[in-house]
């Protein structure tokens, strides 16, 4: 009989296992990986929306996610609400934050670089925002890890025929799918959404139709940030909160949107799931940090082979 | 001697055929005009010839060499230069700097490039502005800069894409003189233009295209009285049948 390596879950101790049990572990990992991956996709969704419309990679995205997590944390701590209920507060706060961030900090650059095909300066500025947000949070709230204790979701698992599935991740998965569909519907079928898409395709033509392009940009940034807020809410029940928590999601977010295609909504979710799967199954065969290396390698591979990603639109390079 | 020969050139973008079996040739020392209604495919043809994208079908022969898949910078080194319809000056730099960039195509030495650039500016009567920032120039001067830059690469064939657009009549006349002067220095010129009196005055021969196809060619006079050309520009009801 083979002894299985101890599972990271506290309640499954070393025990003897055969091939069947190993298969089960792989399936379990895969399922949890897909769930976690969908949450990754959700975190990347805002990034892809912003890129799709503003044609700009928002390097501050991870920090916005971090801000969302802190907002959720404080909301829950102060009001005792269920994390998902705090969405009522988180979404509008994050929307406004993103809206005004774009309006005050990024719009001047857009205006100055109106004729430049791709405003590189915006990337620089969003990187500056990242640094400011992360370190301001560090200054104000300190470096300690925070998490929500005694909440209804933390650490809960459901068992389906011997496979343990994380409940908060399941909620996250559901939220990710709902949000993705909601955003998709918004852009396809609502007037505002179509106005935004029109601006992304040809801003001059759109402005001739009476659309104020800068307002559109502000709104899009607000939406992207609000989506980041939703992602933050799904993470808070089980993920630790600290000032630089966004950095990892930032980098993973870039990888996911490149994988899935910048600007593509299904691409973000599917790209996220791919990354989630690699992360969960990888450690079965190699160390966790080599797994990280694989993700980077995959990213570079996609970049070199098919930069438009799985679902991306081919932009004029 | 034919400096440029385009045979059966086709350019398709997905389902759209922008250029359809275009045939034309230019003799050395000639000024050939290319006209046609908007969207006829003129700039696309230029882009194919200038190496921006290879044609879907057909052959482009420059100076005896097939150049279908050559990149723009190699073509420039072979003696084929072009200007852009929407001018692209290096706005933050001076006129002299701009022209020097072109001059470097034939030399590696900075001061030689400067000399060459100054000489080009002189022939185009542009010396006075040599230290002006390109971004501060008037549109007429920007067009002149565009030509100066291209000429500094010492081309054998110069493709001019609507250099008169946006110019006042006096400026148009000046531009015509400049282009005629260029031909006198030995450069063959291939011009796309919309301003009729300019192209009529300049060209030795004219090719007319419409919907990507050549519909007429000949001397300016022949083309002006060609009924297909008139139909294309003014619509069927004006066609003299």
């Amino acid at each position: 009989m083979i002894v299985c390596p101890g599972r990271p879950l506290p309640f499954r101790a070393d025990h003897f296992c055969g091939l069947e049990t190993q298969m089960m572990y792989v399936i379990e990992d895969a399922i949890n990986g897909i769930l976690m991956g969908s949450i990754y996709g959700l975190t990347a969704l805002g990034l892809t929306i912003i890129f799709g419309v503003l044609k700009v990679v928002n390097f501050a995205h991870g920090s916005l996610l971090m801000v969302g997590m802190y907002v959720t944390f404080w909301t829950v701590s102060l009001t005792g609400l269920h994390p998902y209920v705090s969405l009522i507060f988180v979404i509008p706060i994050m929307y406004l934050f993103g809206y005004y961030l774009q309006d005050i900090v990024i719009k001047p650059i857009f205006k100055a670089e109106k004729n430049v095909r791709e405003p590189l300066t915006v990337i620089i500025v969003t990187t500056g925002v990242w640094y400011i947000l992360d370190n301001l949070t560090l200054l104000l709230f300190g470096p300690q890890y925070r998490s929500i204790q005694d909440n209804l979701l933390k650490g809960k698992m459901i068992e389906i025929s011997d496979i343990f599935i994380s409940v908060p991740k399941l909620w996250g998965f559901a939220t990710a799918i709902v949000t993705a569909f909601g955003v998709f519907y918004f852009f396809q079928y609502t007037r505002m959404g179509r106005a935004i898409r029109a601006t992304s395709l040809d801003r001059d033509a759109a402005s001739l139709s009476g659309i104020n392009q800068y307002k559109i940009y502000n709104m899009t940034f607000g939406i992207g940030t609000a989506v980041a807020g939703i992602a933050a809410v799904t993470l808070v029940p089980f993920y630790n909160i600290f000032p630089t928590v966004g950095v990892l999601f930032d980098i993973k977010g870039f990888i996911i949107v490149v994988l899935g295609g910048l600007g593509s909504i299904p691409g973000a979710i599917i790209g996220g799931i791919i990354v989630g799967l690699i992360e969960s199954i990888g450690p079965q065969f190699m160390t966790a940090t080599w797994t990280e290396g694989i993700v980077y390698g995959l990213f570079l591979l996609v970049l070199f082979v098919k930069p438009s990603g799985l679902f991306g639109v081919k932009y004029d390079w | 001697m034919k400096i440029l020969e385009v045979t059966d050139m086709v350019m398709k973008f997905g389902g759209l055929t922008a250029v359809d079996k275009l045939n034309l040739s230019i003799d050395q020392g000639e000024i050939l005009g290319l006209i046609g209604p908007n969207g006829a495919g003129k700039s696309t043809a230029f882009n194919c010839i200038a190496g921006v994208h290879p044609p879907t079908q057909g052959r482009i022969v420059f100076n005896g060499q097939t150049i279908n898949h050559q990149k723009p910078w190699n073509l420039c080194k072979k003696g084929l230069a072009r200007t852009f319809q929407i001018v692209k000056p290096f706005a933050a730099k001076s006129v002299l700097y701009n022209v020097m960039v072109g001059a470097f195509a034939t030399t590696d030495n900075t001061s030689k490039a400067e000399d060459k650039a100054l000489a080009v500016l002189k022939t185009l009567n542009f010396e006075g502005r040599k230290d002006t920032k390109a971004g501060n120039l008037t549109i007429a001067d920007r067009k002149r800069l565009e030509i100066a830059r291209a000429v500094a690469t010492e081309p054998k064939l110069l493709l001019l894409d609507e250099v008169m657009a946006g110019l006042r009549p006096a400026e148009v006349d000046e531009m015509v003189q400049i282009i005629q002067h260029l031909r006198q220095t030995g450069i063959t010129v291939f011009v796309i233009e919309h301003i009729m009196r300019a192209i009529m005055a300049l060209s030795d021969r004219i090719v007319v295209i419409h919907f990507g196809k050549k519909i007429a060619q000949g001397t300016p006079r022949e083309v002006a009285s060609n009924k297909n050309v008139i139909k294309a520009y003014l619509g069927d009801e004006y066609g003299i049948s």
Partner: protein
Amino acid sequence: MTGKEYSESGRTMALADKGFSHAGTGISLEKKILKDTMNKVFLALVAVLAFGLPLIVKSPTWLHMIILMYFYAYLTTSWNMVGGFAGVLPLGHAVFIGIGAYTSTILSLQYGISPWIGMILGGIISIFVGVLIGLPTFKMRGAYFALATIAFAEGFRVMVENIDYLGPLKINGPRGLQIPPLNTGLSNFMFTGKEPYYYIILIMLIAVLAVTWFISRSKLGYYLNAGGEEPEAAMALGINVSRAKLFAMAMSSFLTALAGTFYAQFSLFIHPKSIISLDTSFEIAFIALIGGRGSIAGPVLGALLLRPVSDLSRIYFGDTLPGLHLIIYGVVLILVMIYQPRGIQESLTKIYDTVVDRLADRLKKDGDA
């Protein structure tokens, strides 16, 4: 002015032959020559000050800070070759510092090869890596290049943090490599005092500035500038834009790697989190951008101004307000990008020019009297 008589017209003609036409610029020829001389004098004074500094400043802590300041000035100037001249945004340049540092350190620790040789080898390896990164990404939008550099840098760091041995080479993962300070001397790139390091980094800085200056006046400089500003026009003028950028990238990678070796020999301890960190890469980019990328003086000015700010804020506020210097960087960066995208060197150069101008007027007046 007796004894220095030359005919004004003769001089003008001679200079005009060299294309030195000043018609229409509104500045008299004499004044221009005077200003040129003043600039040269200014540079000479700066050089004297720089070389004489260790005679005045004796405190090792201060010297250490100044050395690091020059170190960053060197890094930002090297970065500028790609980030400024080539018009792209590399955000992972620390990877080259790491390659340089690890190459020379491993070679000297395990095989006793002089760090100077290791330095060159590290530079050569960096050229390969730099070109490898640039080859596919220079054809894409700037954002992709930036992301690729980040991915490379982070991927490299992750790899180094997890390998203990790469074949026979000891890398030691996150624990890093320590260089025992034995065998001092120039050939071993090891000194007891700080002064030799000071002079080495100063010479390196001057060298890299000279290289930058030469390039900006050379065909490559013109081509990089053109390709960065209007790539389509540049290509039509005979410029292979990608190749020019790759060349710039190769040089930048090489030079940055040299600094890696310097750092290793200076601090005697290298580990991934310190030299291959994203923070370092970003700091280099930020400083260069704030100083003014694309100019020669910009990156240096940025380093000379920002490093002290960052050091001082770390010393005085490090405990109470951690990360303050990074907030300052971020805010300054955003303000500069909005109000002065060409960097602070733009205003500083204007001020300098005005001062020199006034001074030249004064001197000329006194001279004529």
